[in-house]
């Protein structure tokens, strides 16, 4: 499909918000029958570009042509009519409606002016059948998993528009099996002749599915390339504008004497019925413990137990030789624990608060609200994290809702780092964060651990775990099934332990 005519052609697109330039003179061409990845660091302008193409924002400069005709969609509905359908980075679809209602919202089949529910149900079933889903379309959307919802969202967008499908980080909350499911759907759509734009931070996925890539940096255009002729290192330097410095841990680095000495934080036979089977866990100062396992294997549940969100019904927790009861997050924080949950986007941020207020929040809570941090303290705090995590734009007073998705996540991470916890638990800390910042965060973790902080990292990305963890605990079926340490911490070993827990011996 080399000479296919451009389906969508954007030239010289520019957009600024409150004086900040988000996009400057960006060109973008999409052919029909291709999957085109849009890449770039957090805040590079990816979401902004597709929001312009899909009618959420209006562009300041530039032209957009669809099938050779100039278009300027003023809202989502207009873009849909033109043939451009979108699955946005933010929540899509409505959990309080049924699957069929979601699929046909705004375009329900009608008879005599009234919605024809039977017809709607029939069409919904037929539509999803094309995507290999046979589910109850009268059940509420909220009764289905994120992956199924994602496919429903794609089905809706495609059915609605039919020419261009835009996906902003569609796989950010899917596990690898679910990603495959969604990608199979995308490939089928490509073969049908659709043009697909996908934004993702997972480079593996880019090489897996994309035909071409366009890279943005700081709102500017870096270039468009065929993926087959683009080596990975070159792609990374296109994105970052420099070479990536890799972080890998020397797996023997944790001091042998530390390892032998008894750990200050220990959990014995800790567990909760129906949540996680009892486990033992010792944590040494300066140690990074990774937790691997599939979605739903009990990783998040373990974190909830350790942080007192769920209460253990068996076992004991010892801190510095004293038995303690961690019955609530408050007591956990009082013992110096910190926890950065999954789904930060929905749980963590307070949109109207500034970046610096969002960062100061946890520290303030720990100090008690009676002793407010001074404005100067907050500013210093914010400045140091904005610099070290490279939060963009570097403006501590900007309401956080105006930051790009990945930069919001960095601010939430900063919030927990600011409390200088002795044990920090992070659940999927780098999802949606670009590789440059990713490396930065790993380096920061290393620095903090050198100062004696202990860390538990839950992650689905095995490279990330092998890069930072001294030890990796593997979970399956809500049990801790294996522990890898030292030189046995490799992606292959973790995979093997997840796949067949009984085979692996605890090292």
């Amino acid at each position, binding site marked *: 499909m080399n000479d296919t005519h451009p389906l969508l052609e954007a030239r010289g697109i520019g957009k600024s918000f409150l004086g900040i330039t988000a996009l400057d003179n960006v060109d973008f061409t999409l052919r029909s029958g291709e999957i085109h990845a849009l890449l770039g660091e957090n805040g590079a302008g990816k979401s902004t570009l597709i929001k312009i193409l899909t009618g959420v924002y209006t562009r300041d400069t530039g032209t957009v042509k669809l099938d050779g005709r100039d278009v300027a969609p003023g809202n*989502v509905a207009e873009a849909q009519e033109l043939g451009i359908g979108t699955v946005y980075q*933010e*929540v899509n679809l*409505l959990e309080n409606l049924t699957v069929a209602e979601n699929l046909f919202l*705004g375009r329900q089949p009608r008879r005599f*002016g009234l919605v024809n529910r039977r017809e709607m149900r029939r069409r919904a079933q037929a539509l999803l059948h094309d995507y290999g889903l046979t589910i109850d379309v009268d059940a509420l959307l909220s009764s289905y998993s994120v992956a199924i919802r994602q496919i429903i969202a794609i089905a809706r967008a495609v059915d609605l528009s039919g020419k261009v499908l835009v996906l902003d980080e569609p796989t950010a909350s899917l*596990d690898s099996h679910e990603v495959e499911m969604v990608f199979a759907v995308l490939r089928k759509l490509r073969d049908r002749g659709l043009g697909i734009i996908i934004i993702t931070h997972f480079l593996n996925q880019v090489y897996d599915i994309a035909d071409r890539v366009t890279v943005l940096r700081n709102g500017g255009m870096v270039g468009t390339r065929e993926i087959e002729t683009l080596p990975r290192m070159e792609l990374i330097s296109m994105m970052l504008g420099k070479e990536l410095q890799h972080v890998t841990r020397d797996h023997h680095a944790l001091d042998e004497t530390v390892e032998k000495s008894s750990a200050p934080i220990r959990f014995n036979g800790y567990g909760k019925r129906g949540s996680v089977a009892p486990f033992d866990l010792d944590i040494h100062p300066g140690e990074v413990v990774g937790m691997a396992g599939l979605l*739903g*294997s009990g990783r998040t549940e373990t974190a909830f137990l350790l942080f007192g969100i769920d209460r253990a019904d068996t076992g004991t927790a010892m801190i510095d030789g004293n038995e303690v009861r961690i019955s609530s997050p408050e007591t956990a924080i009082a013992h110096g624990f910190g926890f950065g949950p999954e789904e930060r986007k929905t749980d963590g941020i307070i949109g109207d608060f500034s970046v610096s207020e969002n960062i100061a929040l946890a520290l303030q809570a720990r100090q008690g609200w009676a002793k407010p941090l001074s404005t100067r303290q907050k500013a210093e705090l914010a400045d140091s994290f904005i610099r070290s995590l490279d939060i963009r734009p570097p403006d501590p007073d900007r309401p956080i809702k105006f930051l790009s998705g990945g930069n919001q996540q960095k601010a939430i991470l900063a919030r927990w780092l600011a409390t200088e916890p002795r044990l920090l638990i992070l659940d999927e800390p780098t999802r949606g964060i670009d590789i440059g910042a990713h490396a930065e965060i790993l380096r920061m973790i290393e620095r903090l651990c050198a100062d004696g902080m202990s860390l538990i990292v839950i992650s689905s990305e095995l490279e990330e775990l092998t890069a930072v963890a001294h030890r990796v605990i593997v979970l399956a079926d*809500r049990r801790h099934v294996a522990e890898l340490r030292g030189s046995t911490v490799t992606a292959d070993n973790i995979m093997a332990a997840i796949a067949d827990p009984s085979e692996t011996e605890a090292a």
Partner: protein
Amino acid sequence: MISTRNLPFLAALAIFLLAYAACVLQFPNMLSTRVLGNLLTDNAFLGIAAVGMTFVILSGGIDLSIGSVIAFTSVFVAVVVGSAGVNPLIAFAAVLTISTSFGATMGLMIRFLGIPPFVVTLAGMFLARGAAYLISTQSVPISHPIIDAIQGFYFRFPGGGRLTAMAMLMLLVFLVGAFVAGRTRFGANVYAVGGNPQSAELMGVSVGRTTVGIYALSGFLSGLSGIAYTLYTSSGYSLATVGVELDAIAAVVIGGTLLTGGAGLVAGTLVGILIQGLIQTYIVFDGTLSSWWTKIVIGLLLFTFIVLQRGIVWYSDRRLVEGRLKEA
């Protein structure tokens, strides 16, 4: 199919039937078309307003102006017809236009100025009440051949009960309301906005038009309710129907609509109205109970239903989490 979504409605229906059965056991006379007819007539104006409130609450909003708009309407109609001698049908048309535009204006402010519905409709409540005082502070009696004709019109049930024009109007409003909510695109948009306005917007729902439509509808139905009230009392009085919006909210919530929006049925509100009416009827039959018991029982019912709703939300969340764990 019984989904958890309809559980609160079914619970309300069950409570109503059980309570009615219990009442009939104690006072067999309560099982008569006469009681039923009166129950419908006495609550007609509240029911009409509560349909509007159902749409507002389904969309995640609230309308506090209802009681004041009813009072304004009744005073307006009474003065225009009673003192100025205008044809009542013209007065009705005029007052419905006023109340609908009033509601639409509130909707515009909520949507385009981003002011919370609570604040906007609170202001609307004072404004409409003030306007009613401005027209007249007295109770204005009203009499006109057309009005007398409407008041005198009814169907007779076997057993002596009467289905009055007002009761028919209320039932018609419920019927149309249920169709609009369940079977039109506008209705679907109301549920969508109540579920999550951002998502709804990104799915191509015109949230602005829907919001304005919802408050205009509520304004229109408040006006209609005011007309029913005028017919019911044959007068207009600016001090009347204080707090009716709260009774309407209670009926909506007891009928199983989620106060946070996005789930509920118009039919549920009818059950909520019937439950409230049943309590009042029971108190009349008993003769010794103070009418304040109505408020107490409604208060208790409200608590029960809010707890029930939380329970259902909690239960379905849990099932969801468990489902996910199994899937993985």
